[in-house]
């Protein structure tokens, strides 16, 4: 691996003004993306350009413009670099007639591992994804959850530096989804394999990833650590027993910005003295104060925009 270090963190993928056009349609529009070691979420609605970005990272598409650096490899070395890349597609991609152990052994060899080592790796990885007991059964007889785990296992069998996961929980029930996300977290944290997780589900990205890159209409709209998106805001949420309209009106009379959100009153603080204003207004309105807490940011705010 020839990734470079930036502020003590290995940068695995870096793009500059990356553009991909299909005829008149621009799928990616001059995006600058940096994927660092750890678990990164590539979040965006359908059609945002996530799959195009992944295909460009894998070297399956040529950019219309701009540059991509994947683990230090340029365009001419992209095929060789795939020896240390893993990919788990969203769609079905498993043979039905062969066993998981045979399939993984074969895939490890196609990634360049010698036959004996490939067999050992296949057994190890299948154990890590909890398929060691079923590994000699034909994949065609597996449940959806088991097939997803085989898909993850084939992406890990050659011990990649970075794995690209495309909607890894697609088609899974809630229990299967939790299991898969646990596996993804273990892969990133215990196995030391970096992950780029492409998803349109904010919940699973928030639960799993340390960093998020948000794509919308082919452009990167946000890119930061998850903690930055979910940190405390300057808004205070007040749950009261009633009189919400009166409280908001009284706040505005005292030049404090307030609004009603469902059954709560949300106050935008300018300075800490306004906590006294809140106390006084609630007391004057004769309402009971149930809870007062600083509001934390949510990932869904990304798509709601600043006016939310």
């Amino acid at each position, binding site marked *: 691996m020839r990734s470079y270090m930036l502020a003590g963190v290995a940068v695995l993928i870096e793009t500059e003004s990356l553009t991909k056009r299909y005829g008149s349609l621009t799928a990616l529009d001059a995006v600058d993306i940096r994927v660092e070691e750890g678990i990164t979420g590539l979040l965006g609605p359908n059609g945002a350009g996530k799959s195009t970005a992944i295909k460009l990272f894998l070297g399956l*598409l040529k950019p219309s413009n701009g540059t991509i650096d994947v683990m230090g490899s340029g365009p001419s070395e992209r095929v060789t670099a795939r020896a240390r890349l893993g990919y788990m597609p969203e769609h079905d991609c498993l043979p039905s007639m062969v066993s998981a152990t045979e399939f993984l052994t074969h895939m490890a*060899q196609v990634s360049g591992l010698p036959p004996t080592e490939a067999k050992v790796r296949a057994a190890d990885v299948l154990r890590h994804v909890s398929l060691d007991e079923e590994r000699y059964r034909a994949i065609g007889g597996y449940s959806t959850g088991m097939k997803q785990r085989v898909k993850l296992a084939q992406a890990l069998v050659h011990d990649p530096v970075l794995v690209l996961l495309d909607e890894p929980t697609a088609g899974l029930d809630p229990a299967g989804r939790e299991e898969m996300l646990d596996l993804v977290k273990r892969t990133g944290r215990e196995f030391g394999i970096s992950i780029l997780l492409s998803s349109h589900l904010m919940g699973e990205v928030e639960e799993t990833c340390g960093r998020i890159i948000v794509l919308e209409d082919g452009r990167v709209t946000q890119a930061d650590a998850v903690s930055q998106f979910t940190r405390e805001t300057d808004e205070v949420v007040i749950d009261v027993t009633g009189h919400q309209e009166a409280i908001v009106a009284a706040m505005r009379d005292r030049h404090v910005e307030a609004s009603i959100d469902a059954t709560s009153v949300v106050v935008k603080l300018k300075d800490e003295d306004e906590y006294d204003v809140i106390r006084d207004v609630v007391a004057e309105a004769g309402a009971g104060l149930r809870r007062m807490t600083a509001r934390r940011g949510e990932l869904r705010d990304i798509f709601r925009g600043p006016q939310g």
Partner: protein
Amino acid sequence: MTEETRGEVYDLGYQPYDGPREGRTRSLKALWVNSVRSTLGIGRGALAWIIPGLLIGFTILPAVGIVAANVIAEPFAEALPGHPEYYQGVFLVLFVFSAIAAPQVLCPDRRDGVIALYLVRPITATDYIVARWAALFTVMLLVVLAGQTLLFSGLILAAGDPVEYVRENWTDVVRFVASGIVISLLLTTIPLLISSFSTRRVIAALMIVGSFFLTTAFAAALSECEATREGRCEPVTREYARWFALTGLEQTPTYVNDQIFGITDDDPRLNALGDFHPAVPGAWFGFLMVSSGALLWRRYQRIGL
């Protein structure tokens, strides 16, 4: 009193791989081995290998028969078919084998979506299709040569003086290997190209069978001869017959086989090809193989995830 020994199993957790990585050579070898095994049904249970096994048996059965006939009816040995006629005799079986094997090599990867996993490995689409082609060519060549090799071996053993037999007939080996390569090229490239147009093995097999029968029937109908008043055999399409004869997928390799063995045939379609300079059917065959291979390659350059 024996001392009880106790063992404990520790889960070492995930162990990174720091062993050798053999690059593209290993990748290609893995694809080649995988295709050879699936073509012959190795490791797939009885049902998978029984049909290829039977067909291979049928290709070598005539060799056993010819050797037995040579031993039993030695005075009539000259009248028995030998190496020059062998391929024509088993061509239909070889062709059915290729119609089953070629779809097995290409169709499941696209039908199951496994192709997407291959193309993100350290190989290109060209590597993939070259390895698959090479695997089927290897199997076809082995199957094609099996009967001829058995026949040659049997005739050596049946001969009164085996050493003398080898000395007099060793050129037959060169000829049947050269002819076998031509037939294997045809039975690899065209069936693989046709298989690349379908994800279903049965459909692809039917298309392969159809293409051979249709082109053979087309060429036969348009280069068939009719008796003239003078008793000569004149092709129905006159001077154009030789061009129509070229379109039959079976005709050209059969003609090349006859050229290699230096024999003449009474078949009017082959006679029609005989109107050409010998290089023309050879060049046509070369063009057919190169253009089919190029089209197959092109199709796999367009396959995405």
